[in-house]
């Protein structure tokens, strides 16, 4: 996606997945970062014509282009992440970010001493609101009288790469009492995590596991296993089964990160509570509202 390959989260995860596959199978893959909208379609066609198969693309913005292209290359298999495209040779992978966010939201609420937690989004688009909404629900589930402060960084793509603003937003939220902030803001998030660490509060990473960035300062990361999806797609290879597959908590598509970097700050009972919720979501007893479903959020307004 236009966010850039190394945003330390979304696109980077995809890349990692591909690499893992390449290393294990010793086969090669080709990747491109786009610099313009018109190139989406262009890239797909070029790859398809060059016989690449399957072709994996990350980001909803590809949806439209793929819709155009898929039909012209019936022999090629396409995998699109974060978007649903209905075509015989396309596998659409979407993630229940709201579920993952819900879990880290609960964690945030429990880790918070001030009963105030923050959310910092990148560019103000529906997808990010989906994160925010899930997060807020989780927070309130764990602590009904907690407050959630939510900010978006901006309205242009620059909002994905403005760590300075990320820091200021973090400081602003801190001054409003927040002691845990969740950043779903690409490169901007780097500034958020940094500032949180500097100011001695906890932060939550997104997409890939970002705990290592500030050991002991990052409460956890909302994992969106794009890498798995990509890896899966590549190992399935041509002739994979197509259609619509949802990566949720149920099938490990999303979750929260535990590792040596944050084990000291996440208490066992904290983990227990979250895992229980996770289980309930998995077996459908607990429904997390998805912003995308009706473009509204019961607990947060934008």
């Amino acid at each position, binding site marked *: 996606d236009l966010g*850039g*390959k*190394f*945003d330390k989260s979304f696109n*980077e995860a995809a890349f990692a997945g591909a690499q893992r596959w390449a290393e294990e199978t010793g086969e090669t893959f080709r990747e491109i970062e786009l610099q313009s909208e018109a190139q989406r379609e262009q890239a797909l066609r070029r790859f398809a014509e060059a016989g690449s198969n399957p072709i994996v693309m990350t980001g909803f913005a590809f949806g439209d282009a793929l819709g155009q292209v898929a039909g012209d290359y019936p022999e090629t298999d396409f995998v699109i992440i974060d978007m649903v495209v209905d075509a015989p040779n396309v596998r659409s992978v979407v993630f229940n970010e709201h579920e993952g966010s819900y879990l880290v939201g609960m964690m945030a609420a429990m880790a918070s001493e001030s009963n105030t937690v923050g959310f910092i989004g990148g560019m*103000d688009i529906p997808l990010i609101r989906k994160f925010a909404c899930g997060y807020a629900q989780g927070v309130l589930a764990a602590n009904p009288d907690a407050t959630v*402060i939510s*900010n*978006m960084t*901006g*309205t242009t793509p*620059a909002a994905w*790469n*403005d*760590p*300075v*603003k990320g*820091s*200021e*937003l973090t*400081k*602003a939220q801190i*001054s*409003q009492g927040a002691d845990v902030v969740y950043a779903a803001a690409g*490169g901007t998030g*780097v*500034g958020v995590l*940094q500032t949180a660490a*500097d100011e001695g509060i906890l932060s939550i990473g997104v997409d890939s596991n970002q705990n290592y*960035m500030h050991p002991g300062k990052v409460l956890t990361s909302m994992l969106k296993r794009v890498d798995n999806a990509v890896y899966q797609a590549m190992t399935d290879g041509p002739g994979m089964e197509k259609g619509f597959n949802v990566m949720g908590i149920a099938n490990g598509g999303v979750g929260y990160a535990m590792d040596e970097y944050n084990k000291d700050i996440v208490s066992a009972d904290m983990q227990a509570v979250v895992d229980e919720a996770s289980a309930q979501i998995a077996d459908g007893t607990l429904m997390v509202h998805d912003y995308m479903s009706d473009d509204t959020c019961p607990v947060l307004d*934008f």
Partner: protein
Amino acid sequence: MDYMTLIQLLDSTVRLATPLLLACLAGLFSERAGIFDIGLDGKMLAAAFFSAAIAALYGNVWLGLLAGIAASLALSLLHGLASITFRGNQLISGVAINFLAAGLTVLIAQDWFQQGGRTPSLIGGARFNPITLPFADAVEPVPFIGPLYAELISGHSILVYAAFAAVPLTWWLLYRTRFGLRLRAVGENPAAVDTAGVSVIGLRYAAVCICGVLCGIAGAYLSTALQAGFIKDMSAGRGYIALAALIFAKWRPWYALWATLLFGLFGALETRPDVIEALIGVKVQGQLLGALPYVMTVIILAGFVGKAIPPRAGGEPYVKER
């Protein structure tokens, strides 16, 4: 809005204003000498990268600062070469420099660190840490003054204090020294300077270099003080805002301070929708909030500032003979 909120707002204002202020003063020197410079943003970006990169490599932020200044200086000299020596179009040169910086920084970063146009995060001595002024903790409890001193005045990185010190310094240099007199003259009527037996070229290069140094500091501040590392395009158009502030300030040092603080304040307010809501009474919708600073700027500009006359010889290369 309670007092502490105000303090916090102003605190953030100061942080956000600092890079703008430095860049604005940089532009002031250059344009007062008659060299327009829309390449401020590029210089900042280049400086931001090189200071972070060198700091990361050698673990010493001061080395980083020097490297940043050097990088920005190099671009300034390029601008000088184009617009002074070869009497090229100053706007084009500026645009080119912005592109150059945007591309080269990522390219080199990728080549050096393979982290996708990003430097490793800086730790410890590799970044400028906030310095606490004497007695800050002591006076903390004192009502009113305490927080003001401890929160707002104390606890910024050295570069912030440097930036604010640069304002009176610039004023003094410009209006109280021989160099300043000549600098202002060369921006108004180079022929007068030339016939007075002073080198126009020399003066303009001097001005452009000062511009480079200040932009360098601004960039270093972004990546080594505000942040702990470089990220591509991290200047996020601040150079253009500084340019706006410069025109806003009618090319005067003290006005430049107020102008940049104002922009800083807008930026700070943007991070506090709750405060805005409290102030104007209605909740501002998310996206529109982002537009607020710019709308405000336009309103103030049209409402109060009015016409700004740039240095008369600005943008024109000095040509004696065709």
